[in-house]
């Protein structure tokens, strides 16, 4: 693949891709995609400009909100998981009163109504929103594209074990798989199982093992490498 790519571009002279502009020298270009003014994009711009014009919000408010959204990352969730693994009382609070427990861990989940699903040797949980793409953004940030895909949304409810296998996750036949369809006002967060061989690890090192997909439930957390 890369060999072909190179050959196509090799014109008998040495160059890399930082060569100066040469109108005689044509590379196939991917089209720019920043000129697609779709209906909803236009509507968003129109409403935003109107709200600014009417003094309801300022451009600075919007920037701050976008930055706050971007600052929500899966590492926040990973810290919560690591704390639950090392502090049984915190884990209990996390399951019973998630909002308060997560606030205690330093994260505000805003108006989000969260349900924490604990994976156990008996039950593996996995989350989907079949109707759209509801996701616990306040703790995990922006959802991955596959989470929003029609394929994931329609298949994981119907053949969860096959979908999990495609993520490299094989669930033992005698372990229950529980799919959670996020259809209304609740959001779901999977508390993965603490991997074997991690006794004595610090909370910080444990948090580094926890990744986004495990908190959606399509993967499990593996031990120290």
């Amino acid at each position, binding site marked *: 693949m890369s060999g072909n790519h190179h050959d196509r571009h090799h014109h008998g002279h040495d160059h890399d891709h930082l060569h100066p502009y040469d109108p005689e020298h044509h590379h196939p270009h991917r089209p720019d995609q920043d000129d697609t003014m779709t209906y909803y994009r236009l509507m968003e711009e129109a409403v935003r400009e109107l709200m600014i014009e009417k003094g309801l919000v300022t451009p600075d408010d919007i920037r701050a909100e976008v930055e706050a959204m971007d600052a929500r990352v899966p590492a926040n969730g990973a810290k919560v998981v690591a704390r639950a693994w090392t502090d049984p009382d915190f884990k209990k609070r996390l399951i019973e009163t998630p909002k308060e427990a997560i606030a205690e861990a330093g994260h505000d989940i805003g108006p989000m109504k969260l349900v924490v699903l604990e994976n156990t040797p008996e039950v593996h949980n996995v989350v989907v929103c079949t109707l759209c793409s509801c996701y616990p953004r306040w703790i995990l940030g922006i959802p991955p594209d596959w989470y929003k895909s029609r394929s994931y949304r329609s298949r994981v409810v119907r053949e969860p074990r096959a979908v999990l296998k495609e993520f490299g996750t094989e669930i033992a036949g005698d372990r229950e798989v*529980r799919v959670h*369809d996020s259809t209304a006002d*609740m959001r779901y967060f999977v508390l993965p199982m603490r991997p074997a061989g991690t006794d004595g690890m610090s909370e910080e090192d444990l948090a580094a093992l926890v990744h986004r997909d495990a908190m959606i439930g399509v993967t499990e957390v593996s031990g120290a490498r």
Partner: protein
Amino acid sequence: MPRFAVGDRVRVHKQFPPTPPSHIRTPYYIRGLSGTVERICGAFKNPEELAFGRPGTPEVPLYRVRFRQKDVWPDYDGNEADKIEIEIFEFWLDAAGDGA
């Protein structure tokens, strides 16, 4: 006051969207099926009203209902114990007897 309690057997209405099309949070695949109330989530403004700019009040109880995958997909080939849990608003549910 929620009409159902945790552990109650309930059946989802088998209902198609009215005309003109509505905004519905009960997925098609679960309609007409029976499950068990797993928890009561609280009361929320009715999204089927909110979607049309109406106030959505009074708030309606929301439940998480647990279904056996075998009941949802007749050809399901995973573990007998596999489940699916979905949030369903009270006005989509009727009481269902045992074994329903």
